[in-house]
């Protein structure tokens, strides 16, 4: 079958099972947009290419399927660099197709030319310039394979215009679909080493103060069920990192919640005082460890990761296991069962008495809960944490929560109760402000039956709000709660605590722009909430609207800070519980 390159590209995407793609056309990618008209693939026309990238990420987060975005050359391509970097940091499977100037013009500073392969080399798992129309099916097939296997990540495919333009003889190709990939340098390890897994089971059986340190890899490996089985089998408590919220239910008695810079006291301290950390798909990020040299000083480390480069990158593991989290946990469960059976047969005890440790955890949880005070007197400011709790309590239990980056992100991760995997979507590694609105749109496209709430900051919202126009036009009814404190709040918090309250360039204003009018101008329902007693009715109204996006401007207390806090670069032993402890924590 003779096709042109543009047709072959769209057909290749269809062969990969792509249902939806996010993009914005332009000169160089124009020939590929023509066959979209005849394709069953839904294309969502964004208002800015960054939006297309974050939508693809949100879609991938929510569904587990690779997100697909397509943009033109030059500025279209550079506008999607931030989402690529974001997807790289958070291991999001994504395929981005960029147009490129015609082959003969590459390197001539042609109109809208950019060396996007060079630009994105360090922010993609892989990228490739296709040089012949005949290669299109093979390269697209490889791109999806690379994006979705091993440690997932973004792949960029750059396509010169001449090989997709039907008016150019370079675009002629004979259609085929490869039945395999030939990548001699790419063979991710799935199964863990049996001897290492036995070692791990032995350490688990000996530990007195073990903690499971679950990271985003649990979700990428679809290992939430396996994790739960392991935790229940061993009775070991679980902390879930920012990228793993929902991987283990917050309602579970063994769940300790989130560790890290703004984690809760029990999660942080349990890791500090543990004698065994079972790191599953987590990467010892600096926001989790605090000062690395002082992190969990008495703990042995079992580290399971599909990416061998993570093992020993930050902390040397006692038992390193390269492999897919789900496969390794399932094998580990078998080994632990074996050890327990052997111990039972010989009349011994399977593991040391962990009752004192469990009692200690319970005591910390009781002594150091998260807290805030919502006053109900006239003139009392609306607390952002209260808004989140009311959103949580008045929305369906399987609501997907999407956040930007900053204080609102930390409060959301702390105060929401995540009881299902894939219900929490945020930008963890790169910390991309403006992530929430487009990622929520992508998540809603992938999961149309679910309620999707973006909990956003006012600073974040202003960066990508235009994608609500996309949402209105495409009838994607996401909901946005702006926790509007009129500041770049997290930066303001640091200036208050660490820069002697010298507030440099962080004030944004509560009513410039007018968020309600802005939302309405974008085809959404806009609401404003200033008092605590208006919160629940506004949320109920928003949840009852399902034919268009809704934006609620919550005017919250600008003085509120995120606690607990471990100051950057300090030890996790120094948890600052609240303002009463001062900036030093003592």
């Amino acid at each position, binding site marked *: 079958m003779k096709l042109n390159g543009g047709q072959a590209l769209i057909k290749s995407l269809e062969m990969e099972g792509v249902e939806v793609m996010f993009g914005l056309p332009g000169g160089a990618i124009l020939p590929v947009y023509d066959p979209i008209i005849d394709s069953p693939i839904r294309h969502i026309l964004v208002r800015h290419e960054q939006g297309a990238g974050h939508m693809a990420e949100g879609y991938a987060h929510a569904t587990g399927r690779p997100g697909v975005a397509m943009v033109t050359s030059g500025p279209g391509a550079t506008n999607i660099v931030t989402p690529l970097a974001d997807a790289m940091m958070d291991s999001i499977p994504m395929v981005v197709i960029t147009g490129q100037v015609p082959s003969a013009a590459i390197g001539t500073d042609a109109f809208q030319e950019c060396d996007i392969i060079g630009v994105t*080399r360090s922010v993609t798992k892989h990228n490739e310039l296709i040089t012949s129309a005949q290669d299109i099916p093979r390269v697209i097939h490889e791109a999806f394979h690379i994006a979705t296997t091993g440690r997932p990540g973004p792949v960029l495919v750059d396509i010169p215009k001449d090989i997709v333009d039907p008016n150019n003889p370079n675009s002629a190709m004979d259609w085929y679909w490869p039945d395999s990939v030939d990548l001699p340098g790419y063979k991710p390890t799935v199964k863990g080493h049996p001897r290492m897994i036995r070692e791990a089971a032995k350490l688990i059986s000996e530990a007195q103060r073990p903690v499971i340190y679950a990271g985003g890899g649990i979700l990428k490996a679809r290992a939430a069920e396996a994790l739960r089985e392991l935790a229940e089998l061993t009775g070991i408590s679980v902390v879930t990192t920012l990228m793993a919220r929902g991987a283990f239910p917050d309602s579970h008695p063994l769940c300790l919640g989130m560790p890290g810079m703004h984690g809760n006291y029990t999660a942080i301290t349990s890791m500090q005082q543990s004698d065994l950390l079972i790191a599953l798909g987590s990467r010892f990020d600096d926001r989790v460890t605090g000062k690395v040299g002082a992190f969990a000083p008495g703990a042995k480390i079992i580290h399971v990761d599909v990416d061998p480069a993570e*093992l020993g990158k930050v902390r*040397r593991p006692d038992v390193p296991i390269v492999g897919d989290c789900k496969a390794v946990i399932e094998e580990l469960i078998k080994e632990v069962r074996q050890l327990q059976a052997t111990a039972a047969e010989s009349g011994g005890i399977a593991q040391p008495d962990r009752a004192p440790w469990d009692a200690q955890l319970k005591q910390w949880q009781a002594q150091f809960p998260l807290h805030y005070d919502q006053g109900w007197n006239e003139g009392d400011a609306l607390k952002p944490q209260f808004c989140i709790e009311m959103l949580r309590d008045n929305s369906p239990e399987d609501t997907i929560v999407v956040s930007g980056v900053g204080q609102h992100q930390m409060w959301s991760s702390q105060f929401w109760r995540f009881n299902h995997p894939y219900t929490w979507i945020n930008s963890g590694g790169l910390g991309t402000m403006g992530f929430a609105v487009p990622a929520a749109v992508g998540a809603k496209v992938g999961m149309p039956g679910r309620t999707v709430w973006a909990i956003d900051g006012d600073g974040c919202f202003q960066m990508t709000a235009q994608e609500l126009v996309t949402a209105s036009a495409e009838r994607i009814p996401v909901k946005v709660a702006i926790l509007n404190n009129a500041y770049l709040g997290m930066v303001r918090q640091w200036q208050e605590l660490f820069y002697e309250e010298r507030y440099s360039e962080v004030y944004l204003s509560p009513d410039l722009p007018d968020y309600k009018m802005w939302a309405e101008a974008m085809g959404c329902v806009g609401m404003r909430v200033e008092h605590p007693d208006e919160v629940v009715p506004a949320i109920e109204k928003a949840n009852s609207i399902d034919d268009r996006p809704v934006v609620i401007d919550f005017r919250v207390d600008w003085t509120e800070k995120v606690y607990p806090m471990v100051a950057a670069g300090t030890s996790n032993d120094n948890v600052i519980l609240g303002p009463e402890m001062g900036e030093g924590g003592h």
Partner: protein
Amino acid sequence: MAGTAATGAGPRHHILTVLVENKAGVLARVSSLFARRGFNIYSLAVAPTDDERFSRITIVVDVESSPLEQVTKQLFKLINVVKISELDPADAVEREMMMVTVNAEPGTRGQVIELVDVFQGRIVDVGHSELTVELAGPPSKLDDFEDLMRAYGISALQRTGRVALPRLERQAQRLPNTGIRSLGKVG
């Protein structure tokens, strides 16, 4: 595969041989991983192997062992990198080639030619007052020759960067320490 992030060996020469797919842009991917960390590549040689689908890159860097291990692991992650080995200089055969144009006036020409003979080099071009010499061998031999030629006046010098292979007898005996730390892809 246990990490050695905590150990801190001193700076020293490391030779990495990297087998890569013979494709456009692969060298840039490899070198940018060193550049990202501010590691200067001391020398680098690239050529296709006996199998034309692959090229071998020989990289010499001066860095501490622990950061190098992290770079090496990152190199494995490149899709086009097939295999990577670190060669211990003590257990490897290293060779390099050099061409040098040296001042050789009638009064000193004899001395230069004599030294070229001693070093088993070859004169590949002759001018009125200069000679161009080709010399191959271990890098230290090239260093010595370069020092000697400096006294006569070097007007141009080009070295290829070294290539290396593991010493054979140790590899054949499969001793525990083969000199190759095979860091090939896991699995």
